[in-house]
């Protein structure tokens, strides 16, 4: 219960910070909608739905990257990570709170993005939507972890995509697979397994990321 309270307090703090800064969610929304508009005109007429579905996943991963790149900005600019690290709560609560806040923003962006995608391209099957939700979990757990690693370095803006994108490849494979095949169960299971495995790894090793 104490751990849940710590995570709740930290997630609430992250949501408040991002809402008050007012930059992450609008940036994500503008980016994802603009990307769909570009893709709409870039794809030749008569292109298959499969190609459009692939582009959906490209847009989602880069939209998430945009948000994740801002995840630890308050801690970096104001040096607050030292304060959180010194607090007696389990340090993984810092990661989990931030991952939850990022998940809220990513889902909020997708609530707008998916209907816009349907408007420009085609309706998404239910399996694709489930795939997006499962992929969001993986993106936020891994992305927040990588963000914490990158924030400690000088080349943080360079390091974040370099570390995150290779780790997101399985999510894209699973998501695209779940979106285009007739029996998506295998791909959805793969995404769930990825989420569980990486959530466990990030939870167990976050302590070493924030400790000197």
């Amino acid at each position, binding site marked *: 219960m104490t751990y849940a309270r710590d995570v709740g307090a930290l997630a609430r703090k992250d949501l408040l910070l991002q809402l008050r800064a007012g930059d992450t969610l609008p940036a994500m929304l503008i980016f994802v909608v603009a990307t769909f508009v570009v893709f709409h005109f870039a794809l030749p007429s008569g292109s298959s739905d499969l190609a459009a579905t692939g582009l959906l996943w490209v847009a989602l991963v880069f939209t998430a990257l945009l948000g994740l790149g801002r995840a630890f900005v308050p801690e970096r600019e104001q040096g607050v990570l*030292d304060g959180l690290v010194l607090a007696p709560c389990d340090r993984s609560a810092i990661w989990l709170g931030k991952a939850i806040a990022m998940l809220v923003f990513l889902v909020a962006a997708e609530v707008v993005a998916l209907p816009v995608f349907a408007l420009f391209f085609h309706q998404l099957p239910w399996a694709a939507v489930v795939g997006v939700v499962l992929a969001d979990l993986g993106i936020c757990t891994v992305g927040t972890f990588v963000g914490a690693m990158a924030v400690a370095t000088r080349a943080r803006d360079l390091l974040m995509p370099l570390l995150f994108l290779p780790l997101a490849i399985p999510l894209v494979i699973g998501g695209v697979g779940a979106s285009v095949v007739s029996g998506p169960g295998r791909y959805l299971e793969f995404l769930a397994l990825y989420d569980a495995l990486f959530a466990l790894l990030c939870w167990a090793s976050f302590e070493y990321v924030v400790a000197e």
Partner: protein
Amino acid sequence: MLHARRLGKRFGEKRVLRGVDLDLEHGGFLVVTGPNGSGKTTLLRICAGLARPTEGDLERTATRARIGYLGHEPLVYRELTGLENLDLYGKLYRVPERRERVGMLLERFGLWEARHQRVGAYSRGMTQRLALCRVLLHDPALLVLDEPYTALDAAGAELLDAQLAELRGERTCLVSTHDPARIEPLQTAALGLVA
């Protein structure tokens, strides 16, 4: 409370701290002085548990929950109000009767009226006062204060004098300063570092 033997720290090839010995018993008040670049901040970060020494041994009996650390940064969020910042730390430190304790500290440090303002709107001195509230919030057994008088006006400095005097003998304090005369009456030991 705090014992160090031949403590040292390197960042790559650069040595920032060398051969520091210190003993600080419960209730002690150690003043650390030294010129810029002598390693005061590094020593205090090591003692607070924020950095690891690359040489020597450090023994600290206070757990993380019982350490109050004031660094060069106030360690508060600019987008949150003073009250929200202290409330967050109060939750993380599981401070009993949190709201009363937060209110008492805000009042003592003259921030009660500004409690609903975002820290970004605070002056540097007000932010330092809030940082001091954060440090004292969980009633730490070991206070590690890195140049705590920075940015405080005369009234703020007097408040801090009074607070440190109140804690003397009951809490263990490790304080770095460029103005040792100010806290000389409180000190039980001194450590001078050289660049």
